[in-house]
């Protein structure tokens, strides 16, 4: 009897462990990070849901002329943003008004888009799909195409139990994939985890000290953003005339407030700022030390001048480069799901 009880308990424990491992593989909160703000109870991740979302993310079927996918502006190798132009472009070569934000760690994001127009990750894809300068399509039309495709009905069935394709399922699966795009294995992370043999150079250490002194308030560790909005003293682009957050809130205190981006993988996410006006990190740091346009609506944190010597600027950049996460940039589980699309072509 005892023997059977032991077998029963061991089997149960193994099953429990296996379940935990399976869950952990889909999403894990890195050690020392805050709890995610995304409510996973409302959209439980599954391998099938993530795969469907991944297929949708890479499929240009969601744009009017089937040429632009989410990944067109959010390329994995460049921190899920584009680097070859300052403003995003969409179908027929139309140029938008903003630089595409880098994507990572969205389970912790607050409001989305540079102006916070989107209040939840689930509904974020609606904006680029409908934007005339991006995909110029509609959710309705997208769903019709998906229903007619050879690939998607079976992917929806695998993810949700039947082939019904709804806006809700479509958006949930995209969220599932985007939630898995977590960057937490940079040199910075490994140093913070006290991994053996990994430590900052003297230059990087000094850069971290300066970073914490001058930048940490807005680019808060470990996410390197507060997810808030700030007016960082950029003069308004006279052509774009983008007022940022004020367009959404209408508040006189919000002009030129833009979302504070994470600095993770900042080495690869150039050009910088909402309109991509800076190509290099050096230009960004120069802006904060000598380029800030003072006004009544300048964020409080930037009202005192930031003074850095030339060497300190170099140290600061050395630290910022430790936020590069190569494992993230080349993680094949985030990459183009070639096996899905190639199979479809053969069919």
């Amino acid at each position, binding site marked *: 009897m005892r023997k059977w009880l032991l077998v029963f308990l061991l089997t149960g424990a193994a099953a429990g462990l296996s379940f935990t491992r399976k869950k952990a593989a889909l999403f894990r909160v890195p050690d020392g990070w805050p709890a995610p703000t995304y409510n996973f109870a409302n959209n439980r991740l599954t391998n099938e849901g993530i795969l469907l979302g991944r297929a949708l993310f890479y499929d240009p079927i969601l744009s009017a002329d089937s040429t632009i996918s989410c990944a067109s502006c959010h390329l994995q190798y460049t921190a899920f943003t584009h680097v070859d132009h300052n403003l995003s472009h969409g179908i027929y070569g139309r140029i938008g008004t903003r630089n595409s934000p880098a994507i990572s760690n969205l389970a912790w994001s607050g409001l989305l888009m540079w102006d916070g127009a989107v209040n939840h*990750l689930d509904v974020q894809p609606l904006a680029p799909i409908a934007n005339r300068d991006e995909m110029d399509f509609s959710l309705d039309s997208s769903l019709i195409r998906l229903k007619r495709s050879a690939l998607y009905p079976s992917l929806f069935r695998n993810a949700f139990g039947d082939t019904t394709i709804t806006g809700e399922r479509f958006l949930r699966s995209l969220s599932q994939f985007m939630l898995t795009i977590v960057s937490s294995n940079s040199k910075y992370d490994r140093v913070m985890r006290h991994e053996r043999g990994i430590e900052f150079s003297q230059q990087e250490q000094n850069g971290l000290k300066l970073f914490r002194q001058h930048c940490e308030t807005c680019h808060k560790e470990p996410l390197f953003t507060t997810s808030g909005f700030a007016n960082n003293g950029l003069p308004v682009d006279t052509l774009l005339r983008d007022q940022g957050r004020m367009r959404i809130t209408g508040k006189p205190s919000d002009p030129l407030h833009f979302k504070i981006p994470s600095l993770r993988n900042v080495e690869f996410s150039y050009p910088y700022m909402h309109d991509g006006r800076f190509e290099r990190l050096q230009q960004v740091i120069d802006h904060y030390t000598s380029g800030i346009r003072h006004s009544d609506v300048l964020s409080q944190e930037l009202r005192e001048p930031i003074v850095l010597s030339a060497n300190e600027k170099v140290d600061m950049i050395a630290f910022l480069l430790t936020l590069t996460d190569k494992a993230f940039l080349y993680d094949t589980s985030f990459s183009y799901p070639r096996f899905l699309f190639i199979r479809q072509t053969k069919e």
Partner: protein
Amino acid sequence: MSRAILILIGLFASVSSTLYAGDKKGQSIAIVFRPLYNGKEIFDTSGTSPLVSGDTFSIDQIRFYCSDLCLLNGEDVVWHDKEKSHLVDAGNSGTLHVNLPGAGRKYFTSVRFNLGIDSTTNVSGVLGGDLDPAKGMYWTWQSGYINLKIEGICSKCDGRKYRLHLGGYAGENATIQSVSIPMLPGDREFVIGIETSEILHSVRDGYTCSIMIPGKQAVELSALAAKMFMPLK
């Protein structure tokens, strides 16, 4: 003795059957929305809207969210709809008829619902059913449901088109409206008229041809929209 038991069983079955039938009958009550302009029905049974006044003015679309529907006896809620929201579309006659399952058992004096979607729902991510963004009542350029859409033709508007998309859920831009209408139990259908002439007054004058964003105008017109609803019998 056994005969008495049989009679009792027979009586019980008969009474139960009568009660059940009444109960069943009582359950199948519904609210029927009827879109009107100056007291006249706008849409025919096919959902087509004829021009209201020659070729100068028409109402082509009326869609709105009826949410958190409940029945009250005085101040007390006696029945609450399990469905969070119903998307009522004047062009789709099936949606003008909202069933109230189980409500026939209750004694009530009024019906109450929200015209629009509450702020909690607006920040809860994607939802299904009538709240699926694919239903065309969700903004894409910023998050949030459109509570009420009225569209049509007016010769005084640029391009002869007018579009009222009323929404907004945050702070002073909140547009959700509570609507209460007195009712008496007894009928199986409660007809609620939606009189649009007042809200479209400024459209007809060519002053308000397009509202597509949250803000003061949307708030003001939403308050007017709440007054569109009235009992017809």
